[in-house]
C-alpha cells in the first residue's frame, strides 16, 4: 500500500490521476482506498471540489454523479469527437423516451402502469432497449395477480445523464395547477 503523501497538493494530483484513468465513477470511499483509508472523507471531498474548480475552464470537466466523481469532455467538443467515433449511440424513439420518462418520474412502475399513462401497449423491445442500455431494471414485483415486474431507473441512468440523484431530473411541467385554478373559477 503506497504512502499517504504529506502534501495536499500531491494528494490532489493522485486523485486527479485516478479520476482521469478511471473506467467508472469513483466514490469518495473508493478514492480513500488509495491512501489505505488514512485520508478523512471531508478532506477528499474538499480536494475534489478544488479539482472541479481547477478544471472548470478546461476541455474536460470533473462532475459529481450518482455513483461518484468522473471526468467527462465538455459538450461543446462533441461535434468534433463524433467525427472520430463513427459509432453513434442509439437515438431513441418517442415511445422509448416516454417510457423512460414514466419510469424515471413515476418509479417503480409496472408495464401496465406505463400503458395506462401512455394509453397504448408498450412493446417489449421498448423496455428491452432501456434495459440493454443499463438505464432501467426490475426492482421487484407488485403483489397483484400476475405479479408484474416493477421497473425503476438505475444509477447508470443518473450517471449517464450527469445527475447525482433523481431530484436533479428536470422538474415536471406543473400542468396540474392549471387544472386546480380553473376548477376554482
Amino acid at each position, binding site marked *: 500500500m503506497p504512502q499517504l503523501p504529506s502534501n495536499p497538493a500531491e494528494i490532489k494530483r493522485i486523485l486527479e490521476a485516478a479520476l482521469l484513468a478511471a473506467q467508472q465513477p469513483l466514490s469518495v470511499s473508493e478514492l480513500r482506498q488509495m491512501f489505505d483509508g488514512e485520508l478523512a472523507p471531508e478532506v477528499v471531498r474538499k480536494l475534489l471540489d478544488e479539482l472541479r474548480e481547477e478544471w472548470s475552464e478546461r476541455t474536460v470537466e470533473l462532475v459529481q454523479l450518482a455513483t461518484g466523481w468522473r471526468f467527462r469532455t465538455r459538450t461543446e467538443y462533441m461535434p468534433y469527437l463524433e467525427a472520430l467515433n463513427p459509432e453513434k*449511440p442509439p437515438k431513441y424513439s418517442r415511445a422509448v423516451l416516454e417510457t423512460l*420518462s414514466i419510469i424515471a418520474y413515476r418509479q417503480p412502475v409496472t408495464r401496465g402502469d406505463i400503458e395506462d399513462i*401512455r394509453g*397504448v401497449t408498450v412493446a417489449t423491445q421498448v423496455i428491452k432497449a432501456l434495459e440493454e442500455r443499463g438505464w432501467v431494471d426490475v426492482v421487484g414485483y407488485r403483489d397483484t395477480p400476475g405479479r408484474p415486474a416493477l421497473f425503476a431507473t438505475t444509477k447508470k441512468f443518473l450517471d449517464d445523464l450527469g445527475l447525482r440523484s433523481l431530484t436533479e431530473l428536470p422538474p415536471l*411541467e406543473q400542468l396540474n395547477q392549471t387544472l386546480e385554478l380553473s376548477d376554482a373559477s
Partner: protein
Amino acid sequence: MSDTPVLDDIPAPQAAPAQEALARIYGQPLEQLPLDLYIPPDAMAVMLDAFEGPLDLLLYLIRKANVNVLDIPMAPLTLQYLEYVEAMRSQNMELAADYLVMAAMLIEIKSRMLLPRAKQAEEDEVEDPRAELVRRLIEYEQMKLAAVRLNEHPQAERDFVWVETWVEKSQMQRFPDVSVADLQQAWQSILRQAQLHTSHKVQREELSVREHMGLILRQLKEADGFVEFIHMFDVELGAPSVVVHFLAMLELARERLIRITQAEAFMPIYVRLAIADDAETPLTEEEAGQIVEIPAEEGEGDAPVTV
C-alpha cells in the same frame, strides 16, 4: 344533434392546416393529412407514426383547436377523433385497437354529458364525465413533455465522452505476496523431495549465524576494502549479537569468503572480502612474512550444505 359549439379550427383529416407541420417524418415535415378516407398505405404509415397513441392524437386535436383541456367540447372532438381512427382502421386494424378503446370512451363521455342533470346534483359537485379523461390527458402530456426535456439533457456518449486515460498495465508490475507460511511450506516441500531422493539428515543450524554472515558480507561489500575488525561489531546490539557476529565471521573465514589479516601481533586486525586475486596472486615474500593469516579450515569450503 350536437348541442356543443362546433370548433372550426379543429383540423379534420380532410383539411389539415398547411402552415404547421403535423409531424416530422425522416426530417420532412408532414404538413397535410390525406384528403379523403382513401389514404395511401405510405401516408397512413406516416400518420400512425406521428401519434404515440390515442391520448397523443387527442392532445394534438385539442392543442390544435386551442381549447382548454379542462373544458373539452366533446362532440366535435369525438367526431374528429373518429374520423382519424376510421382512416387508420381502414389500413391497420391492429394498431387501431388502442384507438378504438378510446373512441368508445369518448362516445360514452359524450352521451353522459347529454343526459339531463338532476337539479339537486348540480349543487353537490357532480363529477364531470370528462374528469378522468382530463386527468389522463394532463398526466400523459406531462410525461410527453418530460420525455422531450430528458432527451435534451446532456447524455453520455451522445453529448459527452467519459475521460479514461490510458494506464500502461505493463508498467504496473505487481509482485506476488509471500508470507512466512509460504516459505515454511516451500521448505517442507524441499524436505519431502530430499527424503524421496536421499536419506540426508537435517541438522540444526543456527540461523542467526547465517543472517550475520550475510550482514558481514554486505558490510564488507559496502566498505569496498579493509574494515578494522573492531568496527565490524556493534556492541549496542548486546553480547549475544556480538557473539553470533563473531561466529559468523569465523564461519565466513572457514568458507574462505573473507580474509582476516593482522600485520603483526597487537596490531589492528583487518577484515575484507575474499577477492579473486587472493588465490591467483600470492603475497610477496615480505608481505607474507608480515601478514599472519588466520587459517581457514581446509577442505570444508566447498562442502555441500547438509540437508
